[in-house]
Structures are given as structure tokens and as C-alpha cells.
């Protein structure tokens, strides 16, 4: 088991390195000059040159990548130029480890900016996750157990219906009708959970429900399908034949086997959702990581975009790793493979 975990961790680390390289290549090897983008319309050739030097963009891309990675572990200086630092010590920005970079447009360190934003995104993602697991799996089990009768038909058809609404569209509808017009939901806003747990939940509940809705729909179908597949297995007939109660057949024999693949999918989806609250943030106006990404994109703030992409990719890789390890715990067969 330990060997299995070590192997998965090494694979994940390699994946992270490759992703970061690919991201760097994608964004910094493009014809658009990142330094020109830092000042937009106010650019002069001199200011572009200064920014390029300031951010270290005048170095070869491999050196830039090395600087970024070493900055993660040891921190770095902007600009990284001892002669300049000696002449103007007050104009040097120190970026302590783990340094993600510096955004000249925001005149702030990327890590400072992001650390204000990520609790919002995490709150949205985790709340939605709790809702969709509870209802998606719960309803899925009910649908499978009442196969072909009205609860099953109602659940499967309504889930397909909900599934057909794009998330942003559903969000806009609920926001406009149920919050602005009929004030059924409190207006969305973000309060830290440490300041006021109730205010936190109240301000986020609409985003949770909307984000969870689409996932609930697909988890009902997923859980139902795996349940039905398991329910056709011979060992359940054996269990019934030996006189096990229906309760024990459902909960002990069926659920455990049927939910294993659901756990996998849930882990992967959590990783994706942690990276993907951007639509909720745009619809409801939360100032989270996704919104930061949109702002960075519209302002062509490349030094901000790259770290955000990397952080979210790291979250996904991490979620994959956790799923892999969990899977090894649940299903001993995969450890050998």
C-alpha cells in the first residue's frame, strides 16, 4: 500500500511539473508580448522595456520558468537585478516564498491578491459539493429502488430537465426571479464564516443550490445506473437466498459496491468545481478566484492569469491523487496494477 501511495504521489508531482511547463509554454511563447500587455494603451516603448526587465521577461523562457519555480520555494525580488537594487533599494519589491509572481497592473503580489479571494471560491465549492452529494446520491438510491415506478420516473425525467439548463442560465433565472423579484432568497454576498456563520450561509445559499442543481441531476442518473448494475449481480441473489433482510441487502451489499465508482467521480468533480466557481461568481457577483481570473483576462494581466491557472490545475491534480489513494484503500485490486 505504501509503495502504491508513493508511486501515485510521484506521478502527481511529475504531472504538476509537466502542467506548469505546458502552461508557461502556452502563455509566454505566444506572439503577444506579455510586457506590452502589462500597460495596455498607456504603453510607451520605454515603459514596455522597463516592465519587461522588471518582470524578468527579457530572459529566455527556460530561465523565466526556472525563476518561477525557485521563487516558489525561496522567494524572489522584482526586479531581479543587483545593480538596480543597489541604486534604488526602495523600488525593489520582495516576494517571499511561496512567490507566485507580481502583477504590475494591480501593483500587488499575486499571492496577496489571491489569498483574499480563495476563501470565497472554496466556500461556494464545498457548500455545493455537500448539497449535491447528499441529494444526488440519496435521490439516485431512491430512483434505483423504485425502478420503473413513479418516484423513479419523476426523478430521472426531472433530472434530465434540470441537466439541460446551462448553469449560468439557471443562476440568472433564480437570481432574478427568486431573489430580486420575490425575495425568497437573501441577496448574495460573502461574509467570512469566522465573522458570522449564519450570514455566510445566507449569502451563499443561492449559489450552492444553483451550482449543485446540475450535479444533483447527473449524480441521480449515475447512482441509479450503478445501483441497478449492482442489483443484477448474483451475490445479491445469494444474500437474499440465505435470508438476509432487504434492509441489509440494500445497505450492506448493494450500496457499498455501487457507490465505489461514485466516490471516484465525486472526487474528480470536486477538483473541477474548486477550479470552476467562475460562473457562479460572475452571475452572483462574488469576488472570488474565478472573478479574479475574468478580471485578469479582460485586463490581459498575464502575470496573474498564469498562477491562477497553475493553482487550479494543482487542485485538480491533488483531487485526482486523493481519489487514486482512496480507490486503493477501497479496492485492493488496483494497488497491483
Amino acid at each position, binding site marked *: 500500500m505504501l509503495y502504491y501511495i508513493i508511486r501515485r504521489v510521484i506521478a502527481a508531482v511529475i504531472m504538476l511539473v509537466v502542467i506548469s511547463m505546458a502552461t508557461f509554454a502556452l502563455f509566454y511563447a505566444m506572439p503577444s508580448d506579455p510586457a506590452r500587455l502589462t500597460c495596455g494603451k498607456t504603453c510607451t516603448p520605454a515603459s514596455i522595456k522597463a516592465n519587461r526587465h522588471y518582470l524578468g521577461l527579457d530572459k529566455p523562457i527556460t530561465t523565466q520558468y526556472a525563476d518561477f519555480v525557485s521563487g516558489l520555494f525561496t522567494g524572489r525580488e522584482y526586479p531581479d537585478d543587483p545593480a538596480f537594487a543597489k541604486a534604488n533599494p526602495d523600488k525593489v519589491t520582495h516576494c517571499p516564498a511561496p512567490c507566485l509572481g507580481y502583477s504590475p497592473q494591480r501593483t500587488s503580489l499575486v499571492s496577496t491578491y489571491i489569498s483574499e479571494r480563495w476563501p470565497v471560491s472554496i466556500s461556494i465549492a464545498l457548500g455545493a459539493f455537500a448539497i449535491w452529494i447528499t441529494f444526488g446520491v440519496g435521490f439516485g438510491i431512491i430512483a434505483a429502488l423504485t425502478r420503473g415506478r413513479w418516484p423513479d420516473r419523476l426523478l430521472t425525467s426531472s433530472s434530465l430537465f434540470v441537466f439541460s439548463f446551462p448553469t449560468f442560465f439557471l443562476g440568472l433565472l433564480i437570481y432574478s426571479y427568486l431573489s430580486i423579484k420575490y425575495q425568497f432568497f437573501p441577496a448574495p454576498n460573502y461574509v467570512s464564516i469566522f465573522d458570522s456563520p449564519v450570514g455566510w450561509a445566507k449569502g451563499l445559499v443561492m449559489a450552492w443550490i444553483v451550482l449543485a442543481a446540475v450535479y444533483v441531476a447527473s449524480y441521480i442518473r449515475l447512482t441509479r445506473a450503478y445501483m441497478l448494475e449492482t442489483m443484477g449481480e448474483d451475490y445479491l441473489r445469494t444474500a437474499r437466498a440465505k435470508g438476509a433482510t432487504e434492509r441489509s441487502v440494500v445497505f450492506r451489499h448493494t450500496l457499498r459496491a455501487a457507490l465505489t465508482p461514485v466516490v471516484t467521480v465525486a472526487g474528480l468533480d470536486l477538483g473541477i468545481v474548486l477550479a470552476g466557481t467562475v460562473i457562479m461568481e460572475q452571475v452572483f457577483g462574488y469576488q472570488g478566484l474565478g472573478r479574479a481570473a475574468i478580471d485578469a483576462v479582460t485586463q490581459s494581466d498575464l502575470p496573474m492569469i498564469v498562477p491562477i*491557472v497553475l493553482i487550479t490545475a494543482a487542485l485538480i491534480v491533488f483531487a485526482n491523487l486523493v481519489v487514486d489513494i482512496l480507490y486503493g484503500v477501497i479496492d485492493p485490486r488496483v494497488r497491483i496494477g
Partner: protein
Amino acid sequence: MTVTAGEFDVDSAIGGEERDTTIAGRSPGQIARSRFRRDKVSMVCLAILVFFILLAIAAPILNAVGVIDPDSGHPDLVQGIGSMPTGHLGGVSSDHWLGVEPQTGRDLLSRVVVGLTSSFIIAASATFIAIFIGTVVGIISGFSGGWVDTGLGRFMDLVLAFPQLLMLLALSQPLKDRLTAMGVPDGNTVDFAYVIIVLGFFGWPYFARIIRGQVLSLREREFVEAARSLGAKGPRIWFTELLPNIWAPILVYMSLILPQYIAAEATLSFLGVGIRPPTPTLGSLLTDSVNYLLVDPMFFWAPGGLLVIIVLAFNLVGDGLRDALDPKSDRH
């Protein structure tokens, strides 16, 4: 054990003269078709889709001959407070069946119809790219095995590990710049090309995995063995022997990702990196109308309702197809 009548018609062909008419051997394709035809919901949805697809194809022609007119404004029809359409339901009249847009007074029905065409073009092209790459990579990966399979598998993992939505956002500027540098005309063409490329590129790995799984189970079958012993080489086996045997998952997957891409185009426009107004697509129309949702619901619901109807119809058809094509399915 009870066996439902009809399920084993072919096996019981020897007995009973009067059954002969129903016993004619049917190919899997025929069975699937007849199953699908009996599925009323799917048939209705298919009819709806055919109607909208024909409408989308006809839209440029209708626009050229002047039946619909998405571009000219009617300032006289938007005299309400804040230049809102005059009249009920966003200015519905015999000339403008769905009313007109606020501010400009352009005919809403015309814009939705033209928008439908652009949305279909984007979704269909992206689907084609995803399916094409996915099929080729899936077949090669599944059939070759060994280091080719491992390498392609790792590459798929890599593509899937990127946060898709964020990449779609983040890549918009650099990729559009690159496309422009490569000679793609700026403006609409670049926007269209960008949306199609990113959707298609991030869409294929899932599908490649499905195809790979199918090919793995097919490659040891006798007909492949036979082809190989007759001297058939890689590409011939891939595309003339294997491909015809995996059309079922291709068809099902196609019907399931096409609506996703229609929705994705709308989402990208909403996030500000898709097709920009005033070019109508379902997404850009929705984005335009977001601020009018409560004051002029028709403006929002015309593109929004159409979007939901089309996505829902596609999902139901996809579901029906899957049931019809699955030999194990117990729905007839």
C-alpha cells in the same frame, strides 16, 4: 424463468408457420431503428430538432431574400421608458412575432433565427473536431497498446488536468492573437475559430477513452485476426475493420456533446470571451438581454427558451439512442 414473447423470435424460428412473417432476420441496425421509432418521446424530440436544424440552414437564405431582417433597427417601436419596446410582451405584433429588442428595435425573431445558425455552426464544428480526434486517437491507442497507448494516455491525462473553463477564459487573448498572426481575419472569424478550437480541443480526451475501451474489446476478435492474416496493415484495420463496429458509441456521444457545446458557447459569451455582440448567437443574445430579464422578459426568454428546448431535445434523443443501440437495454 419467463421469456417475453418476441425477444427470442430468431431462436424459435423453426416452430410455428404463422410466425414466419415476423421472423425475418434483422440486423442490429434495424433492431435499433425500430426500437428508436417506438420511443415516442425521442421521436418527438427528433422532429423538433430536425425542424430547428432546417430553420438554421434556411436562415442565411431567408436573410438574403429579406424574409427575416436581423440588422435594421426600428426606433419608432422602442418609445417606452428607457427605449423599451412599445406594446405588450416586448412589442409583439404581426410584423414582429417575438417583439423587438430594447434600444435598437431590431426584430427579435430574426435575430434568434440567425443566432441559432451561428450556434449550430459552432457546436457542430467543435463536435466534429472532438469526435474526429477522439476516434482516431482512441482507435490507435487501443489497438496499438504498448508505449503508444501509454504515451497517448498520459497526454490525455495532461489535457484533462487543466481546469477547462479557466483555460477557455485565460487562453482567449493569446490564442486569438496567435490566430490573427496566422492570418485569420480579426473580429468575428477569430472569435468563431477560437470558440470552436478550444471546445473541440478540450473535448476529445473523454471520448478517446471510451473508444479505446471499445477497441480493446474488439481487437482480439476473429474478424480482426482474419484481416490481419490476409495481410491488412494498421490503418486499414483501424478504419475499415474497427471503425464500422464502433459507430454506436460515436453516434450516442455526438448527440450528447453537441448540446453541451451549444450551452458552452452561451457560457463563453456570457463570460465575455465568446462571440461578441452585436453578432447574434444564442449566447451573445442572452448576454445582451441579461440586464432586461425582469423588465422585458421576452427579450431574455426568446433566446433562453430556445436554448433550453434544443439542449433538452438533444439530451432526450441522445438518451433514446443509447437505449436503442444498447443490446443489453431492456427497453424496447
